[in-house]
């Protein structure tokens, strides 16, 4: 302990000017209140997907700065737990990587249960932000890696096992890859990221990915890790490894991210893929069908993350509407790509705003 104090004191001494507060609050970034945000105040509670955690953390901070005295809690316990808590009435809204199921599983239909919780009114799925799925890798000396969807599928299925395999070399002319085994990490827990990633692999490759898309990992190769953090730490600490994860988890640790079919991952390329997304829900429900082969200049592996709310009859509707209005506003969405997310495309954002305005 005393060592640490010494270290702190040492840092202070090094930064002689630092140990007294040097500057007073600047007026620079006093956020302005977007139109339609009225700050009704109170406490709002949400629970669900961990992929939205960083996004909502920043949103909550920005919102509560504009609306002092308001408290917004978001517990990131996973999509499944969030939907359960929402149906059970424990939280005001759920965050989820997949929309409410409309087909029966184990004899229950999530959408019907949610409608019951909302006093007979339907619950709506609002896409609020898009999370690109990054293929992060850790190979010394290789700063740029390009992979085609079928190569990705075959790597994660354990068919391509070394970095210098001819299939990978064909995607990366002029790059020397090591003759090392590929270490694969996947999500050991059930996760929306896995579901969206395998959905992408199944659709974008012509049968190269042999498994059914599901929340649980179906491949047989590699090592399972808990949560995005576990997978990302695995890649960070293991040489010659590769894994799929939310972009934010890769950015957070400075991991190298592979390009897919020559398209590098950025806010712009990910947003480009979303223009092709198609709304399949109705009456304010905005569940999406993503296009996994969007074509030139678009990063195809993206997932939509939803906020699930009661259209009418939910708890705390005024604050919920106000908070979501803030989250979906132009000026708020403009900043999300620095957090590792892709903003809503303008057309979809208008639809989302309309659905939010109808929440009562």
């Amino acid at each position: 302990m005393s060592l640490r104090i010494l270290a702190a004191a040492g840092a202070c001494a090094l930064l002689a000017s630092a140990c007294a507060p040097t500057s007073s609050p600047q007026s620079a970034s006093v956020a302005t209140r977007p139109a339609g945000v009225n700050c009704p105040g109170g406490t709002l509670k949400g629970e669900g997907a961990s992929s939205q955690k960083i996004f909502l953390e920043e949103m909550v901070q920005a919102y509560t700065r504009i609306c002092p005295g308001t408290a917004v809690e978001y517990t990131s316990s996973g999509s499944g737990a969030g939907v359960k808590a929402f149906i059970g009435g424990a939280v005001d809204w759920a965050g989820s990587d997949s929309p409410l199921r409309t087909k029966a599983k184990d004899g229950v239909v999530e959408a019907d249960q949610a409608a019951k919780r909302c006093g007979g009114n339907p619950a709506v799925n609002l896409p609020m932000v898009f999370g690109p799925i990054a293929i992060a890798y850790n190979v010394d000396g290789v700063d740029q890696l390009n992979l085609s969807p079928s190569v990705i599928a075959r790597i994660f299925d354990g068919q391509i096992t070394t970095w210098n395999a001819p299939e990978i070399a064909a995607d990366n002319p002029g790059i020397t890859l090591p003759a090392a085994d590929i270490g694969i990490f996947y999500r050991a827990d059930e996760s929306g990221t896995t579901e969206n990633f395998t959905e992408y692999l199944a659709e974008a490759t012509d049968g190269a990915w042999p498994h059914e898309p599901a929340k649980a990992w179906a491949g047989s190769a590699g090592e399972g890790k808990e949560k995005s953090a576990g997978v990302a730490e695995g890649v960070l600490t293991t040489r010659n490894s590769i894994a799929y994860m939310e972009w934010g988890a890769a950015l957070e640790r400075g991991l190298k991210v592979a390009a897919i079919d020559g398209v590098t991952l950025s806010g712009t390329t990910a947003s480009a893929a979303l223009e092709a997304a198609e709304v399949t829900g109705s009456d304010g429900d905005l569940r999406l069908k993503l296009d996994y082969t969007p074509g030139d200049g678009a990063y195809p592996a993206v997932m939509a993350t939803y906020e699930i709310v009661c259209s009418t009859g939910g708890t705390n509707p005024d604050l919920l509407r106000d908070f979501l209005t803030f989250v979906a506003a132009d000026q708020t969405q403009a900043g999300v790509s620095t957090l590792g997310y892709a903003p809503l495309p303008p057309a979809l954002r208008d639809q989302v705003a309309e659905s939010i305005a109808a929440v009562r």
Partner: protein
Amino acid sequence: MTTPLNLRRPSGARAFKNSLATFGVWAAVAIATLPLLWILASVTIKGAPLLFTVGADHTIVCVDESDLRVPTSQCGTEEDAKGGTTRADGLRWAFPSGGKHVAVGEKVNLYRVDTAYPAADHIVYVDSDGAGEARFFSLQWWTSSLGNATSKDSQGGALQAIYGTLLLGLLTAAIAVPGGMLGAIFLVEYGRGTRAARVVSFMVDILTGVPSIVAALFVYAMFITTFGMKRSAIATVVALALLMLPMVLRSTEEMLKLVPDSLREAAYALGVPKWKTILRIVVPTSFNGILTGVVLGIARVMGETAPLLILIGYAKYLYLDPFGDSMGALPTMISDGISVPDGDAGSDRVWAAALTLILIVMVLNLLARRIAAKTKL
């Protein structure tokens, strides 16, 4: 004919067995103590600074095109940083939060880093070339709750979690202590040797072995699934009380057994009724021992995590209401922050929360020892 005692030093195989036994004992001692010391040392080193300091909100550093840090003076002075960030030569200002900064030549992770001069209290212009950390004296850890702080913010305390942990511990004691004490009094004073006492004793033994997650599931199934109640601090308290009850009961029972029968008989001889004997003679005699058991029980349940994960939502804001459905607690604060990567302020908070929990439990343990030392039996 008896063989004479061999008092020479053992030799050969016996010497080997002898030293093997010695080695085994000392190895066991090391295994028992070293991990504890290691845990204490690592938690203290990583967590202690947050208990009385806070990291700078932002540092000002200068980075080149490939995000490597260059000497800050190459970008200009602190006044330049306030002016704007666009520069022609590819160098740019960065304002990482949390107070830690890497050495010149190392890569700066610019994820979620402000590109404009931030609005905050503690902004430190880094003019040294080495890695380091800027901290300010502050007791915000104890006086403010986490609130809307993100994992990158250095501000943000643990008041809500400390309050939650203490409140849950006290409420649990309020349920488990009377129950445990009355049960022990029954076992020792009323039911000694009877069939009922044997059954109760057996049940308590089983209850001691129930894992905390099972106790939590039982409460979840009963209160939340069956009766349709919401998650709440009270439901958590019920689950924790199930865990604490056998601990209190067993320690109280042992203490009551130590009270000599002659005391009870003397009281009866003076015509004192049984209930009054128990209340005025038996319990006060063993009071210190009972209290020790209670304090140890509280310390034990404060560290429980499983019931909290299932029965109550983790909260970052301070809610005083024990009937509410969210409340912060130190164990859940640790589990909530575990996904934050090393180096961010949020990961320091995990260690500081662990240290705070250890400190609270340690204070309670010392208290129990003080009380036990005064026991005159």
